């Protein structure tokens, strides 16, 4: 990995700053950071905050791409700063901006309470057909049945897919790739029987039908969740449901 090449001593980092108490709009600010061959963008930001400018605010925690805190735009691409390495962005300057399509609260921190509400709206919990006593032990599920939904359960809620989705950018009410992938995760779980209760969210104008299959969400997803697949395969389900309701006069559950 580290071939003998001349690494620079320093690298420039441009960050889009925004302080709600003093700024009318965001401004770019340039920092210079000592370069190290295995330095991540997150480590560069931490260096800036520790040594140069304590006023730079950004979210982070686990440093291993599992908590989903550190999503931001790095050189125009939605990425996790803990897993993006400065050596791949040389010679710089590296441009860092808050995650696209979300309102900026401060510096690299975006408002995600809208997303959390959407997550809550898809009924993201198991709705079994029949209750089961603890003494009856676990419900059985074969490895094949697990495979049907495991991928969609790997979402770390990093919201890179929302930053990649122009439909969400144009209409913030769109339920969006992450929330819909989570909805699909539960529908695809063999232990769940709550599909009918989640139909209203899928069928809505801002459910699957706001998606135009751009597909960028699945490209940027760091966990291989493939939200584009989750959303688009449910267009068929939504259409079938609509048709059946129309034909059989079945009422939509909510």
């Amino acid at each position: 990995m580290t071939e003998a090449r001349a690494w620079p001593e320093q690298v420039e980092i441009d960050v889009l700053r925004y302080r709600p108490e003093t700024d009318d709009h965001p401004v770019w600010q340039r920092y210079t950071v000592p370069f190290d061959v295995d330095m991540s963008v997150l480590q560069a930001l931490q260096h800036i905050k520790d040594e140069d400018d304590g006023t730079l605010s950004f979210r982070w925690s686990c440093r291993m791409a599992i908590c989903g805190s550190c999503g931001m735009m790095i050189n125009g691409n939605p990425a996790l700063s803990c897993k993006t390495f400065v050596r791949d962005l040389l010679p710089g300057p590296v441009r860092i901006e808050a995650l696209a399509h979300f309102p900026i609260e401060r510096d690299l921190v975006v408002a995600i309470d809208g997303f959390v509400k959407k997550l809550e709206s898809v009924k993201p919990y198991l709705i079994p057909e029949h209750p089961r006593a603890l003494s009856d032990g676990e419900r059985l599920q074969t490895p094949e049945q697990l495979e049907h939904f495991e991928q969609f359960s790997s979402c770390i809620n990093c919201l890179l897919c929302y930053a990649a989705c122009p439909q969400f950018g144009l209409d913030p009410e769109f339920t969006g790739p992450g929330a819909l992938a989570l909805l699909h995760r539960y529908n695809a779980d063999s232990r769940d029987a709550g599909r009918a209760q989640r139909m209203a969210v899928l069928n809505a104008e801002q459910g699957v039908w706001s998606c135009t299959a751009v597909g960028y969400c699945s490209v940027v997803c760091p966990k291989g969740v493939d939200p584009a697949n989750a959303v688009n395969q449910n267009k068929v389900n939504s259409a079938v449901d609509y048709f059946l309701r129309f034909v059989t006069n079945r009422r939509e559950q909510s």
Partner: protein
Amino acid sequence: MKPGPAARRPYVRPMTGWWRRDPYFVRYMVREATAVAVAVYAVILTAGVVSLARGEAAWDHWLAALRTPASIALHVVLLVAMVIHAKSWFEIMPKTMPMILVGHRRLQAKTITRVGWAAAAIASLLVTWLAWRWWT
């Protein structure tokens, strides 16, 4: 800095020119634009069918229009657009399908794409052969 809580004042960045920001979005817009090519070609074919219904004179008139240099140039453009349209459709097609397990292994997206291309290639060859048979 005055003490006390600050109100939230989130800044919303405008979406103007969003599709120019990222090569992926540019390719997406090109894909969407190729649907126009499909529509244009459908109109041309419809005109052909209508001309056929109107009789030999109308039909010959339509064929003559197709043979003009302008028309040929248009058809080249439409053909390129169709190929791009097909390519991008076959790439996105696997996204519309549920997970298919063959034996214990998952059917890969690229397999579905290749099946799509194969079907398109076979259909194109068949039509070309028929056209050649009819012409000669």
